[in-house]
């Protein structure tokens, strides 16, 4: 993907020089191979620092909220999956179309250094991708992985290489990971558990939470001026976990709040410092919405109303919906 980085640098310079953008959102390299950080570039000279590789998972769209507030025309590099978040932000009126220029940026799936570490690659020094082979150089020797084993969870269920919104597309589209399984398999597995086991599962998961709010802050659907969890007047304000029950409610409410608006990008689960399987809560809502009210993909466009602000007169009743679940 080095070639793409070069294209991005050239594009950023072109957009800044032509005045099409005052600011460009892209990635800057970090200390290691994998810790690229989102960064804003407004200076043409700095654009050569733009990097792009298999470790640019974050969606830059969320920074457009600030760009819209500053009324600064901002160019943003978007991977195909990122464009869903952009549409959702547009739908939620959090960003304005006139203030951003979307550059579709090809992606062939992002890698997860945490998975590499879990598979035994301690102290990663460098990563090289050779097709489906990932070669990881560590302080304790070289390791080799199959790409599918170290793909980010969210990339395993890739939505494909189409951009849902883009002013232009950079280079050729890349082949994205093919997902043929059932994206709800994990949800179904939990549904199939007996009630006590389900409860125990979530107890174990959610008790890991340290209430850092990273899941919320990365989420393209969580874009409120003030989150209810930060609002002392709201019933659920709270900083740290008082006990496990509070965590359950925090995560339930967090997932509920984005139900119908969650684009299923999986970022919440990716950023969780404690590895809580948060994405499953969101997926559960997506699954239920699809089953109860018809298939819906948030962020596929910027206009279709969310299932939670629409209705049909023959919608299933709560109990009925529960029983209907396959």
């Amino acid at each position, binding site marked *: 993907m080095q070639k793409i980085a070069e294209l991005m640098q050239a594009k950023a310079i072109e957009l800044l020089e032509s005045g099409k953008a005052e600011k460009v959102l892209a990635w800057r390299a970090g200390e290691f191979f994998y810790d690229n950080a989102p960064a804003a570039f407004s200076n043409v000279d700095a654009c050569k620092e733009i990097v792009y590789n298999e470790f640019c998972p974050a969606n830059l769209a969320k920074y457009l909220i600030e760009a819209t507030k500053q009324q600064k025309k901002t160019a943003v590099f978007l991977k195909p999956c990122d464009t869903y978040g952009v549409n959702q932000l547009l739908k939620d009126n*959090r960003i304005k179309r006139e203030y951003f220029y979307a550059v579709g940026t090809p992606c062939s799936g992002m890698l997860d250094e945490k998975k590499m570490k879990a598979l035994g690659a301690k102290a990663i020094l460098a990563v090289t991708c050779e097709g489906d082979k990932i070669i990881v150089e560590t302080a304790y020797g070289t390791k080799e992985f199959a790409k599918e084993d170290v793909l980010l969870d969210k990339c395993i269920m890739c939505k494909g290489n189409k951009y849902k919104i883009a002013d232009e597309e950079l280079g050729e589209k890349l082949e994205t990971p093919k997902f043929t399984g059932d994206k709800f398999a994990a949800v179904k597995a939990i549904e199939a558990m007996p009630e006590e086991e389900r409860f125990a599962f979530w107890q174990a998961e959610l008790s890991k939470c340290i209430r850092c709010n990273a899941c919320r802050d990365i989420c393209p659907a969580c874009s409120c001026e*003030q*989150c*209810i969890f930060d609002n002392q007047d709201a*019933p659920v304000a709270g900083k740290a976990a008082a006990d496990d029950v509070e965590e359950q409610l925090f995560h339930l409410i967090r997932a509920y709040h984005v139900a119908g608006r969650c684009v299923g990008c999986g970022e919440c689960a990716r950023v969780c410092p404690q590895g809580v399987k948060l994405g499953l809560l969101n997926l559960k809502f997506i699954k239920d919405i699809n089953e109860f009210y018809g298939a819906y993909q948030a962020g596929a466009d910027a206009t279709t109303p969310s299932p939670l602000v629409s209705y049909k007169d023959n919608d299933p009743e709560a109990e009925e919906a529960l029983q209907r679940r396959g």
Partner: protein
Amino acid sequence: MQKIGVFVCWCGSNIAGTVDVAAVVEAVKKIPDVAYAVDYKYMCSEEGQKLIKDAVVEYGLDRLVVCSCSPRMHEATFRKCAESIGINPYMVEIANIREQCSWVLKDVAVATEKAIQLAKAAIAKVRFNDPLHPGQSQVVKRALVIGGGIAGIQTALDIADAGYKVDILEKEPTIGGKMAQIDKTFPTLDCSACILTPKMVDAACHENITIHTYSELEAVSGYVGNFDVTIRKKARSVKAEICSGCGICTEKCPARKTPSEFDEGLRNRGAIYIPFAQAIPKVPVIDREACLKFKTGKCGVCSIVCPNKAIDYTQEDELITEKYGAIVLATGFELIDLDKYGELGYGRSKNVITSMQLERLTNAAGPTEGHLVCPATGKEPKSVVIVSCVGSRDTTERGKTYCSKVCCMYNAKHAMYIREKYPNVDVTVFYIDVRTPGKGFDEFQRRAVEEYGVHYVRGQVGKVLSDKDGNLTVFASDLNSGKHLMLNPDLVVLACAVKPAKDARKLASMLTASIDTNDFYVEAHPKLRPVESPTAGIFLSGMCQGPKDIPETVSQAGAAAAKVIGLLAKDKLMTNPCTAKCNEKICSGCLTCTKVCPYGAISGVEKEVITLNGTREKRVVAVVNEALCQGCGACTVACPSASMDLQGFTNKQILAEVDALC
């Protein structure tokens, strides 16, 4: 420090018989902020109210909790009582210890315990009550009726007679609507035009009525009592003020290829035309798509023959803006397209016609001057087949799921007067069910069978074939006998389903009036508020709300008028103060709230707000129009940031109740 007064009513023995009221008083006295508590035999009585007022003065109470019967009974009483002593009426909460406690429980200890809990919840809530003030808005004393058919005319006349100004908006060149096309009306068989045209004239002459024909709704904003409406008056190409309505232009017009809408295509009209003789206004209109002058630039015959020089080819659409206090939707109906019912032969044989075409064929003012002839041959038919339920009660994508309601009766009407005028003509009506509820309706249908010898066959027509000579064959089955029938009538009449006017959906979104899946307007309550739309200030009249016949339409028109009059009679509207309120400081402007508001009461407004940081920022925030908001609270839950709250039922109030009860 708040000072809450708690007043526990005995309601004679209704409450005191099961609840130990003294114990309730003792228990609530221990609650922080309760400055005074007392029980009394009948708190709603004059004496009881005096006791409350005295306590307010003596203890300096600033909020009241009355433990008594359901708030549906006496909340208003106690609110008034509070107001009279200078406490905002919304600082009163009722704990329902009668319907919810003493009347459903037998054990005194249990009932007393529950009464105390209910009182505690009310006290918890009242702590967060804020004084609320109903808003006021002026009422513009003018109504707009959209649609100039019988529904619109009747509504307008009733409103105008009560002394209020009314405008009628009609998209066609004349008022009169579908009823003007109809020959006779059931169940009396009197002439439709004879009863309609006087009403049209009344409307035209009424000093309080202004008629805008050939006009459409362009834009609407505002709310109940204060609608701002823009009307597009389409260019007639005729100066209405100097036209005498002599009609010479319509006779001399050489472009005669356009089927007459009024005559259901059974004859052609000129490019300049007056839809029918009694049209109001009797001013022609140029159909610019058909007019040679507009198409080729050559012609101008009408301009030459006009004695008053009223023709104006340069006329342009005109936009009128007007304020209204109320809007009535009376947009009526259309017949469905029969494209999807090819098997019935409509469009392939001229002798297969719709019921509306039959009306024109039998109408003395129609294309045949009332002689019933087969359109293809011009000859009188020997037998006629009438097919009911064409497209009605059809759940496939071809038709409409509902019963069109009027067809059974007009089929009987048609059959009857064909038989009356042409006793030799054989008439067969194919039906699924004959539905004739209504005064004198069943008797009417039975007369068709018993006195006029109309054949009623239970069963549906499958297909109508037409051979090369134009002879028709009707395939049907008689379900009662189980026989397969093949008939050769000369004329087939299709009683096709009705549907709301095409622009109903567009109007609904302009007016935020709800429509159902069939595009009929939805009433505020199907039983109790049948002529109001859920949006305040928008009323419904006639077919646009659902299939109905003329008498029903006229009664609904009157009812809608009464509602409008009731609204316009008010100088000011007191608005319900329990409305939604947006905390602009934290509103993100996502406007999710606007999507669930049934009243269109919330809009996004770009304004300067003070942010959480205390800085000023210009951004879109949700703004609630208090006059429109009815206080359901749907928006409060839809709001992701909880910036939308409902006054009188705030998050804090409800949660305080929850906490108190758990």
